[in-house]
C-alpha cells in the first residue's frame, strides 16, 4: 500500500508517502526524525493485517510543510528519514 500522509493547500502539495509493502517496521526513520513526525505501529488502513509499519503521526499530518522544513534547507537535501530507510520506502512530494 502506498500511504500518502499530508495535505494540499494554496501553497502546494505536501505529502510523505510510505510504501507499506517495502517497509519492514525497523524504526530507523523514527530514530532519525528529530521532530517526532514518524512512528511505527499497526497499519490503521489495513486493519486485518498484523504487520507493523511506519506512518506519519496524526499530530503532524497537517503541518509537515513547517515541521519538515529544517531538514530540507534546499531542493537537493535528502532528509534524515529518507536517508535512514534502507528499504527505500519513504518519499516526499515537495
Amino acid at each position, binding site marked *: *500500500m*502506498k*500511504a*500518502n500522509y499530508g*495535505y*494540499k*493547500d*494554496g501553497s502546494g*502539495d505536501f*505529502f510523505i508517502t510510505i510504501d507499506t509493502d517495502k517497509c519492514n517496521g525497523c524504526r530507523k526513520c523514527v530514530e532519525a526524525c528529530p521532530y517526532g513526525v514518524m512512528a511505527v505501529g499497526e497499519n*490503521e*488502513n*489495513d*486493519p*486485518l493485517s498484523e504487520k507493523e509499519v511506519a506512518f506519519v503521526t496524526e499530530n503532524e499530518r*497537517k503541518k509537515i510543510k513547517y515541521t519538515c522544513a529544517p531538514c530540507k534547507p534546499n531542493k537537493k537535501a535528502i532528509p534524515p528519514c529518507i536517508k535512514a530507510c534502507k528499504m527505500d520506502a519513504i518519499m516526499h*512530494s515537495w
Partner: protein
Amino acid sequence: MAEKPEYWRWTESRWTNPDIDWKGKVITSGIDVGSVSSQAVILADGELYAYSNMRTGSDSPDSAMKAINWAMEKTGLTLKDISYTVGTGYGRVNVPFSQRAITEIACHARGGNFMYGPTVRTILDMGGQDCKAIHCDERGKVTNFLMNDKCAAGTGRGMEVFADLLGVSINEVGDLSFDIDEEPKPVSSTCVVYAKTEATGLLREGWPKNKVLAAYCSAMAHRIMTLLERIGVEEDFAITGGISKNKGVVKRLEKEVGIKIMETSKYDPQIAGALGAALFAKALFDKGKK
C-alpha cells in the same frame, strides 16, 4: 421576520431490506460519524439488512446513537442483538457501543468494493469536510490512498455554503448549474471563504445564480482533479459521499478525468464508509470466534 429557509439541508434516508429476516443470524453494524453526516449500517450474516443516513449533531456519541436507532426502527432489533460494531469517520473513537475503530480510508475501500463490485479500482470519497482518493484491489483492500482534510475546498461543506449564499436548495444545485447559456470559467479560488467572496462579486456584476453555481461546480471538479492526479485514476472509477449526488460536480469531473464514473448503486452513496465498517465488524467477529 420570517425564518430563513435551510438551503443547505440535504435529504436524509433510511432503508430496510424487505427480503431478509434477521432472526437467528449474526448481526454486525458499522457506524460512520462524519463531520457533516452520520450513517449506520446493519448486516445480517454479512448481507445488507438496513441503513440510515442523517445529519451529525454537535455531540458524536449522541449522533451515533441516533443513527443506529433510526436504522433499527421498526425492525425489532435492539443494541443487544448486535454482535460486533465498528466505528469509523471523524467521530470513530466516540461511538459508545462499538468494539473497534477503523479509519474511513479502509472502510470506504471495503464498502465501495461491496457497493460497486470487484472491478472498482479507484474510489473517490467526497465527504462533508474532506476528500479521499483511494485505490483498492479486487477484495477492497487499500493499495494507495490520499486524503485532504486540511481544507474545505471541494467538500460538501463548501457546497452547503454556496447553496446558502445563492439561496438554492442543495439538492437542486447540480441540475441548475447546467441551466446556463454557456459554461463560464471556474471561479479562480477554490478556498471556500475566498470563493464565496468571488461569487458575491460576480452576483453584483449581474451574473445569474445558475452561472455562478456552474463556475463553482467546475472549480470544485478542477480542484479534485488536481488531487486525483497525485495518485492517478484507474478504471473502474466510483464516487461515494454526499457530493456524488451532485451532477454539477460529477459530470464536470468526468469530463476532466476523461474516464466514465460508475453509475451510483441503488443504495445511498453516503453509506459506503459505514457499510465498510459493518463488513469489517463481520470479519472481526468471525476472526474472534475461531
